[in-house]
């Protein structure tokens, strides 16, 4: 009997950051090959940062991504400060963490409710979700309010939601007043409850029963949830300091081709 082949092509993946397409080739009901094409054009940040003043770097790197500009401001400002041997006093460190938390709230709500949930529930978009039933409309309104709560932090500490302007090598340009920060408290108390509601709600989404041997990479910090500082670790036990990051990634790439035990630096 001749084999039956089928090809599924998605020209442009929807509701993801960046741009990509996907082709899946199937033969007799089995997946034969998968090809992910990232056609996002290059913008050459590493190229044109050469020759710029160190003070200009956080404003420029923010533009790598409009969904998570603070991430790129934080990583570049830390890199520059590390070069100059500058460490932040605890108050400024906390304020930077607060700014980053604001972005996490905003960005995670975007991803959970507006980018991913429609796929789990079979809608084309979060807007279509909101129009489908009063219950889902309430969910989307909660998402928008929670997203706004995160954005209000970025707005206050950073100056605006997308590409904030307040992060400076050595600290901030201007510090928020105590009463401005106080003004966020009530809404953030609501947001904490809404975040817990989000965990309960998203835990009920129908996840496919599928596992693969991914190696996840993240920061690990001894005393706090790691955002800005910590060692780079992987779920299979590799660990290294942040400034050894390129070596670490090279090790991970090797790992995909070699048995784990043969690699140096592996602790588990």
């Amino acid at each position: 009997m001749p084999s039956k082949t089928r090809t599924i092509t998605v020209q442009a993946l929807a509701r993801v950051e960046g741009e990509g397409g996907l082709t899946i080739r199937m033969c007799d009901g089995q997946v034969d090959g998968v090809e992910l094409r990232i056609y996002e054009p290059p913008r050459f940040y590493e190229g044109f940062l050469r020759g710029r003043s160190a003070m200009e770097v956080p404003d420029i790197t923010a533009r790598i991504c409009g969904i998570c500009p603070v991430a790129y401001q934080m990583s570049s400002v830390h890199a520059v400060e590390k070069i100059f041997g500058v460490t932040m006093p605890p108050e400024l460190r906390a304020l930077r963490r607060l700014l980053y938390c604001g972005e996490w709230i905003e960005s995670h709500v975007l991803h959970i409710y507006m980018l991913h949930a429609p796929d789990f529930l079979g809608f084309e978009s979060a807007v279509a979700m909101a129009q489908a039933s009063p219950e889902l409309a309430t969910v989307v309104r909660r998402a928008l309010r929670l997203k706004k709560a995160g954005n209000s932090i970025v707005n206050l500490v950073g100056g605006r939601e997308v590409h904030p302007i307040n992060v400076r090598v050595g600290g901030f340009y201007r510090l928020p007043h105590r009463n401005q920060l106080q003004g966020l408290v009530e809404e953030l108390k609501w947001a904490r409850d809404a975040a817990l509601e989000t965990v309960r709600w998203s835990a009920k989404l129908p996840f496919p029963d599928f596992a693969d041997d991914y190696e996840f990479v993240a920061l690990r910090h001894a005393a706090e949830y790691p955002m800005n500082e910590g060692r780079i670790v992987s779920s299979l036990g590799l660990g290294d300091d942040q400034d050894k990051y390129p070596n670490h990634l090279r090790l991970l790439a090797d790992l995909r081709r070699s048995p784990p035990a043969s690699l140096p630096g592996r602790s588990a």
Partner: protein
Amino acid sequence: MAKTMNRKPRLGVFKFASCDGCQLSLLDCEDELLVVAGAVEIAYFLEATRRPLRGRFDLTLVEGSISSPEQLDLIRDVRARSKFLVTIGACATAGGIQALRNWGHVKEYLEAVYARPDYIKTLDTSTPIAEHVPVDFELRGCPINKHQLVEVIAAFLAGRRPNVPNHAVCVECKRAGTVCVMVAQGIPCLGPITHAGCGAICPSFDRGCYGCFGPSKTPNVVSLTTQFSQSGVSSDAIRRVLHTFNAWSPEFRDAQ
């Protein structure tokens, strides 16, 4: 235009070379998003909906610059499908930060940045949408101001011109009561030649405007850069401050 339609106008949102930030501004309209979605049909918006590219659009928002061969084809297709085409942000309007390559050699950039340059497809330059197809309105900013975006959509629906002033950031500072950082503290500020729209955020945070909204209408660039150099800013620093997110705009392009 929109007023006479019996159906909801079809909105298309497209991304070219850019960071996603300007189209995200539409999703950042937490208070207005569902209202906007009630007034228009979101017919294509890859960041928000999986709907495939089909048909024509009454209002098209374009983010990003033209920097790859595929984008050249796509923008012509998008223009042909669109009645009213609005560019949103500095990339679409002025080429974006990635237009800094226009002063160098793209081959050198490719080799400096990528381990395997042969995998990368790119044009030699990053250029604004209006260099390739006619544009009906340009909304400035890196990123755009989301309230101005809502104004553009509302104006389109009402069939009127958007109320988006093209004066300098200085006017916004005066209106907000912000003390001039250049006069009072000697901080170099691009406010006098930069297009309004952000609400003069940077001076209110004790820093000079860095020009992310691009040139205002008829900016006196020479006068300001002369002032900068008289107050001790090096010519290299002056060139750098003008050569950021709107470097390829004609008014900033050749500034020394």
